[in-house]
């Protein structure tokens, strides 16, 4: 019989009631989105790993302290926590411009045994990833922020507006300009972002 995956809401409640395996399922379910969001914002793999850990430690502590108000948007809540930790980090460091732009795509090649075909596919995918990352990095900070919060966190524009301390219209406008800019960049660079 096919097992139906428990909802985030169900897992949160299970964890609060003492089922410690539930949090592991939740973290594993969302780890890629949360990590990608942090990495694309912070642009540094080791730092992203630290903030990823901090984010979920805070998530767990908040759940234990009964601070989570369940509105069925667990991932959005986690992304907001990550966003706040990133802001805290930038405030502490005050060196936003000196953050390195290291690309650790090379890690991919060490992750598993690969056949020649897999390697070729991996290289192409890695190239596509790199090109898309370049596009995202070329967006102005405020536009990139809205794109990442929307795509990886699934935040509504009201939530994005609250999170970034702007009006909803401003958040919508930033998204609009981000989409225009992305498409212009794709055309200007004549990028093909698919594998044929």
């Amino acid at each position, binding site marked *: 019989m096919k097992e139906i995956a428990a909802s985030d809401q169900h897992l949160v409640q299970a964890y609060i009631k003492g089922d410690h395996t539930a949090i592991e399922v939740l973290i594993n379910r969302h780890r890629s989105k949360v990590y990608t969001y942090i990495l694309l914002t912070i642009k540094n793999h080791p730092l992203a790993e630290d903030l990823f850990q901090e984010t979920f430690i805070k998530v767990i502590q908040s759940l234990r302290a009964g601070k989570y108000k369940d509105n069925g948007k667990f991932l959005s809540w986690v992304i907001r926590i990550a966003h706040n930790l990133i802001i805290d980090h930038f405030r502490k460091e005050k060196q936003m411009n000196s953050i390195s732009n290291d690309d650790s795509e090379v890690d991919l090649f060490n992750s598993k045994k690969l056949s020649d075909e897999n390697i070729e596919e991996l290289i192409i995918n890695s190239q596509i*990833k790199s090109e898309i990352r370049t596009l995202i990095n070329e967006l102005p900070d405020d536009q990139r922020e809205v794109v990442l919060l*929307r795509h990886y966190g699934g935040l509504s524009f009201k939530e994005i507006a609250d999170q970034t301390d702007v009006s909803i219209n401003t958040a919508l406008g930033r998204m609009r300009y981000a989409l225009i800019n992305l498409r212009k960049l794709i*055309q200007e660079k004549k990028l093909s972002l698919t594998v044929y």
Partner: protein
Amino acid sequence: MPMVKISTLFYRVDGFDDLNASSTNPVIMDLCIGDQYLDTLLAPLCYDPGEALVRTILEKV
């Protein structure tokens, strides 16, 4: 504007012929199209921190 199913992102980008439109263009304002565009564009952009990092977190708390 009705949604058109298209198979590749490159074609998708070409399919939207409103690059010279003003920022008030209702097509770009359409959130569904915007979300779908981002879903397609950013789909390959996914980084996995790995299970080991998750285990590290669970050991810490």
